[in-house]
């Protein structure tokens, strides 16, 4: 990056009353990954010595922020949860969905409100074609192609109620506008766990 660009950016920050750096996957998913984010946050911290500056992640995929919120309060961590020990174990790089798929460790797969078929790395998707996969979604998408079972779900905010968190973590009530014969994600997952308990005889 040319020196002039850096200086121009610095001048912009200095002239601002309140600045926000929105960062996305270009920062988090390129080489050095979380270290890039660390650099941005160090910059933001230093800039606040003179000006008000904050940073906010540009989250995608509808309610991904809500998943992180719920996972954090229910289990302690926002993602990459491994419950094999009976409590959540968290080690991104080891327990992330793609870490497990790349190691070909998963022997079954369930997904909801996401489209790994379109967004996961090819190596992960190749493995997903080989193992039984269940999709819970309102729409067909590339994930449908490798899914062995597709359970159509009601659309939150149209056909059923619910909560979604914006990328700034603001929760919004999703309202029901029309009736549907499809079940909500919550009902589908509750039915599934009840059936598993019945089959396995668990609590």
């Amino acid at each position, binding site marked *: 990056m040319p020196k002039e660009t850096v200086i121009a950016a610095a001048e912009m920050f200095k002239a601002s009353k*309140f600045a926000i750096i929105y960062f996305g996957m270009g920062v988090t998913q390129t080489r050095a990954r979380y270290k890039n984010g660390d650099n941005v946050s160090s910059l933001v911290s230093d800039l606040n010595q003179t000006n008000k500056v904050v940073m906010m992640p540009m989250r995608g995929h509808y309610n991904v922020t809500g998943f992180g*919120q719920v996972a*954090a309060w*229910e289990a302690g961590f926002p993602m990459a949860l491994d419950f094999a020990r009976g*409590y959540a174990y968290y080690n991104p790089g080891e327990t992330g969905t793609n870490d497990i798929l790349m190691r070909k460790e998963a022997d079954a797969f369930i997904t909801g409100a996401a489209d790994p078929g379109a967004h996961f790395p090819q190596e992960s998707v190749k493995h997903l074609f080989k193992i039984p996969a269940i999709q819970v979604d309102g729409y067909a998408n590339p994930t449908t192609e490798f899914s062995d079972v597709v359970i159509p779900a009601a659309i939150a905010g149209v056909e059923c109620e619910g909560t979604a968190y914006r990328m700034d*973590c*603001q*929760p919004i*009530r999703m309202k029901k506008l029309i009736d549907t014969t499809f079940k909500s994600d919550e009902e589908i997952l509750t039915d599934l766990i009840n059936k598993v308990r019945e089959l396995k005889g668990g609590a």
Partner: protein
Amino acid sequence: MAEMIIKNGVVYDPANGVNGEKNEICIKDGKIVESVGAGARIIDAEGCVVMPGGVDGHTHCAGKINVGRVMSPHDMRYRPIPGLSGQEARTKLLRPQVGYNTPNTHAIGYRYSKLGYTTIAEAAIVPMMARHMHEEFEAIPILDKLGLVLMGSNWQVMQYIADGDSEKLKAYVAWLLLAARGYGVKVVNPGGGSNWTWGKNVTSIDDKVIDFDVTPAQILLGLAEANESLKLPHSIHVHCNNLGVPGNLPTTLATMKLLEKVKASRDRQVMHLTHLQFHSYTGTSWMDFTSGAADIADYMNKHDHLTFDMGQVIFGPAMTMTADGPTEYRNARMFDAKWSNYDEELEDASGVVPLSYTPYSFAHAVMWAIGLELALLVKDPWKVMFTTDNPNGGSFVNYPEGQALLMSDKKRQEVIKGFPDMAMDRMSLQNIDRELDWNEIATMTRAMPAKMLGLTEKGHLGAGADGDVAIYDIAPEKVDPSVEHEAVKKALSFAKYTIKGGEVVVADGEVTATPKGKVYWVNAYEGVLQAEKDRLMADIKERFAKYYSIQLANYMVEDAYLPRPVEIRPEAI
């Protein structure tokens, strides 16, 4: 529901003047009653202390704590207190538990219950984010909950105070409680949260707030008067300006004096001052700071319009979380720690920063001493609530440690022996030999917090109270808390029984049932005159159209988020 009778225990119920008597406690349909039938289940409390269920009137348990969780995956493995911290696998009854300062919601419910606590108050939520607080409340089992709503840097609040429009302010305060389904008015670093939008702060109660023609003093008085005019069950709940700054003592004393001119509308304080330990520092820097607890206590002892909680420091890792945004930025820079910041549109700010307290730091040692000094120097336990400002001063699972310290001068002197010399002439705890008794502990952890919050069904064991009871396996006539610190701590850490709404939820220190708790909220808006509501709504509509990033239609917390609500209506106004 089945009947229950608790027999043979030594009962401490300060609200009803019961001080260590062998009374029987009867419960029917979840409530304390005068008597029960012969078929009632008998709980034998022989050799035990019996108290009302604990009430934590200031804890960060839903909302910002989730930011703390995301920031501190390392915290999930901390296990300094086995049984009350760290990772525990699910059982047939219990969900998985992780964490120490920022445990998952289920662990919060289980662990408070093990301590004999049955009611908790989330200390600070911006109205916009109240929906999130209620979602976490629903995921905290067993306990009854309530939330305090941040108003001290709210644009509309400041505007109405600047305009001198007290009727509109009153209507707006009531509306915010309705919108958030909140219980009371919280004021954090008044005006400072708004200034933090521009990277600034306020440094005294007389500074001007940027863009608003008001001072922190005017915000405090305006909100206190609105609060009393609405006859809310709780008073304003205040985190003073200049938290954690050496030399903040004059600011704290000025805030205390300021409220002398407000008259309480109920039999309670006009202001609750929270985590006073962080606001009781003399000096000009960390090098010359000393404890200001004696001055604070002297004032408290001479005046009756205030209550406070300690904000006791516990040595070890903590997680600070507060609406005091500028303080958190300062903490992060001072300790070179992780920093999280929120600017909540028109409402307030907040931040989260992990830190650790060590007895080898003279500053931390003195902070530890100040919390205890405040509780011991203030004579009337009805003015003091025991807290650590969980998890700012330390995790709530350390409450038994702090409470046992209040009961033992010997133990306090042992800890002080390990302090650096530089701490000794900055504190006075080494010269205070007062030791609290069980009745005083029951006051600071049950009776006082319930009265301070205006929760009439909580904190006592009289007929009509909720059937919330804690039974600790320690015999007051056999164990001397002033020498048996560990025995007291152990008994308070793992209740023999915790009874919630007439149901045994903890037996022998283990959780045995996980009923869902209630959520208390205050509906004062019902009583506001229609003409005032109309005047207010015109402003609110304009604010939402002009400034908010969400629609008014998406703002009010819906009924769906409070599956077990208890709506409290202050008497007609």
